[in-house]
């Protein structure tokens, strides 16, 4: 029913709620972030549960970057130079990012990179 090129002629969908079927991949899970905790501890539960998926995402991004930069210079820049910027990021985000890096085992530069990816992607 859908065309692969515009103009699009698929009819407006109706009756899709509550979500089911092939376009629905599940509900997002709920977590509580306690703002009374020190910033570096707030995300511990989330990171504990999602560590594998975060590490996988960073590996996917690194593989993509390495496809364009086989020398690995960009990744070295992220790992060794980006951490310098951590203290310049606004509080409490800088401390939360440090906490995420500690809990996930990822280099802090890669967690910063992930957190400023929207701005970078605007390139």
């Amino acid at each position, binding site marked *: 029913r*859908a065309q692969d090129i515009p103009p699009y002629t698929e009819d407006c969908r109706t009756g899709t709620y509550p979500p089911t079927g092939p376009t629905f991949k599940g509900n997002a899970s709920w977590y509580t972030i306690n703002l009374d905790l020190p910033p570096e501890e707030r995300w511990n539960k989330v990171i504990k549960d999602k560590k594998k998926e975060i590490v996988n995402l960073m590996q996917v991004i690194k593989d993509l970057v390495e496809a364009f930069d086989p020398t690995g210079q960009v990744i070295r820049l992220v790992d060794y130079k980006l951490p310098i910027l951590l203290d310049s990021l606004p509080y409490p985000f800088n401390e939360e990012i440090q906490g995420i890096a500690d809990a996930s085992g990822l280099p802090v530069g890669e967690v910063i990179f992930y957190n400023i990816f929207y701005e970078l992607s605007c390139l």
Partner: protein
Amino acid sequence: CTSIIAEDEKGRMFHARNLDFGLFLGWDIKHSTWIVNRALKPLVLNLDFQKRNKTVFKGVTFAGYVGMLTGIKSNIFTLSMNERYSLDGGFMGILEWIFGVNSSWVGFLMRSVLENATSYKEVKKELVETKLIAPAYFILGGKSGEACVITRTREDSMDVWELDVKQGMWYLLETNYDHWNQPMFLDDRRTPAMKCMNRITQKNISLPTLYDVLSTKPVLNKLTTYTALMSVDDGTLETYLRDCPNPCMPW
């Protein structure tokens, strides 16, 4: 992305969005999808930010990302952000920031206003006036009659597009193009989405019918990571992970 704010005939406000991300970030031939988009989906979370065991605001984010791109402060406002393409984009903003220009990161600013702002007007002022590192569209909804799309450059606000129910404008719909210009021919999600909204009519608008609009191709496409539905009056936030099986537009 596609964000919609609508007001029904009883004055109830609804805010819904598709978050699309991962364009040109690697194509997975086996699964016929974008690689980064696929890796992001398991990281989508609903978050309940609390102080003294009381909810301050709720939002949707990716695990490990401390900013917010979608959020709701119950009974006060709902907020989402769509990417805005510009040559004067985030890379320039980052360089300026490194050299000491005081600008805000978009996701951090959104979380700050969700956490600290106490009124629709206050949020609007902050989103209009704060210098940003990257351009963006902010889609902001409040109580009956309060909604706007703020088109931002890094420096200032280009336009604030207001809801005007008395003039028949009962919804605002933003994709990734300035609303006063035509979207790119190959990426026109606005026209099909508006067609569906106009067919639903104000009388029948609700979170389920907004989900219908956001499930219609190409509003739903290979980049769609999640669909979030929000209602400011009762603090509802529902987030659904999405997939777009073939045939489906890659963006």
